[in-house]
């Protein structure tokens, strides 16, 4: 095939193309930030829910569960657990762990106070209200 192929041109295209697509990505990010208030349920992001997120993080819940589909795949999705199980069940469940049933997957006991349990539930209530484009496909997550 007849033609020219130079390293200098390939390099220029690499730099130009990368900058171009990164700028495009930034533009879309800018629009996303503008649009998020309509979707991210920030109204329910209360102090209590924020504290709940902190509890979620410091117990490394993501190491077993998914949240909006991201995390580990060892235990159920919790983004919609508020709707699936309701606040009282969630609290009772966490307090009852581990089940100790032989051969079954075990969740550790985290010794959360009543207040902390309420905060965690507030966090789940908040995540449950995020507009996830109708994901998961059904209540089972």
């Amino acid at each position, binding site marked *: 095939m007849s033609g020219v192929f130079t*390293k200098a041109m*390939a390099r220029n295209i690499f730099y130009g193309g990368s900058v171009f697509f990164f700028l495009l990505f930034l533009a879309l990010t800018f629009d996303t930030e503008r649009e998020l208030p309509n979707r991210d349920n920030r109204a329910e992001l209360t102090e209590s829910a*924020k504290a709940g997120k902190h509890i979620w993080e410091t117990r*490394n819940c993501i190491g077993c569960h998914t949240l909006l589909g991201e995390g580990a795949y060892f*235990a159920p999705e919790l983004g919609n657990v508020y709707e699936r199980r309701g606040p009282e069940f969630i609290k009772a469940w966490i307090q009852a762990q581990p089940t100790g049933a032989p051969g079954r997957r075990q969740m550790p006991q985290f010794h959360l106070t009543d207040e902390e349990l309420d905060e965690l539930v507030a966090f789940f209530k908040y995540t449950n209200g995020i507009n996830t484009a109708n994901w998961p496909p059904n209540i*089972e997550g």
Partner: protein
Amino acid sequence: MQYKSQAVAMPYFIAAIGLFVGQIIFGLIMGLQYIIGDFLFPAIPFNIARMVHTNLLIVWLLFGFMGAAYYMVPEEAETELASPKLALGLFWIFLVAGALTIVGYLLVPYETLAEMTGNNILATMGREFLEQPLITKVGIVVVVLGFLFNISLTVLKGRKTAVSMVLLLGLWGLAIFFLFSFYNPDNLVRDKFYWWWVVHLWVEGVWELIMAALLAFVLIKVTGVDREVIEKWLYVIITLALVTGIIGTGHHYFWIGAPEYWQWWGSIFSALEPLPFFAMTVFAFNMVNRRRREHPNKAAVLWALGTGVMAFLGAGVWGFLHTLAPVNYFTHGSQITAAHGHMAFYGAYVMVVLTIISYAMPILRGRAANPERAQVLEMWAFWLMTVGMVFITLFLTAAGILQVWLQRVSDTPMSYMATQDQLMLFYWMREWAGVMFFVGLLCYLVSFFVKGGTATPARA
């Protein structure tokens, strides 16, 4: 070895392999926990095992990248490393910090670890892959900056090749995007949105630059093909990688609360993400076919070709399988994701690091290539690990398809745990494939100690 200071790469490679072994052991533990739920509970709960598994992976790949850079850059720049002492010092800091972090995960309850390490000052922990305590994160930044300083200075004072420029760019990008791990907004959607700036822009962005640079370097060395040819294809491939990969981030924004146009942007650009991997495979085979010398290190050539193929399969094909939004709607966060993650990480990053180790280690030990018998064993290790990983991926994919079917597609969806009970056969098969992988890894370790009479003397 052309430059004395390249020797600092050796401890990095050894540490990488050591941590790799640890990663696989924890992988096997988790595989068993999937089946026998209370295995090792409460001593090592699943979430701790997983954290150790993934964090060890990240850390050993970083060791591998750094070792690769310390080995490659002096040779590319045709000058000694700016400061071998700094490189060695940072090695020990990184190793001790990494080991302490892992020990902390295993011995201290996570919430206590968080309190002890300043997570209440700046909360960054408890997010997938970014579980490291604040001080570890700061440590990573310090080590990487010191490393970049050292490497950049070396490049600046010497010859500037495309390979070293691309490598440097990838490593700087790695450092810059890691800074987003310190940003943890309360708003979960924004948290997740920018979390991907670390995770996706690493593995489907700047790490691909590192990977391509490593591969290009080894190909130049083992094939003897004109550097000019390899370097211009290097640029073309990484252009494709970033053109598709940057906007491809959108495939993570489908269901986390981000605007819905990401379903289109993400699907379209990530559908093109197999292109760079395909180009890389074609490129690797083409260069080897056009080789101008028979390099005595057959094992390194095998690893290089394997990287191309497995990266294409794992990142390209398995990524494409579930990247389109209508498919991902059902597969998001299922075992299919796990299948893709395993083969992509192995094919792209594990294998490229093993490629450079395979090429460089014999030279660091004073010979152009290992004795025949050692190479044969290393190739056995290649096949056992690679085939093992293919099976892990296939079984996880099967588990994922069944899971999606029972739990998401069905008119009468089963609960998560009830579904899991149906997948046990596949989880058993996955565990056995994992054992196969581990046997391959043991062969790999042994191959370093096999002696034989026919070692090829070093050329330089």
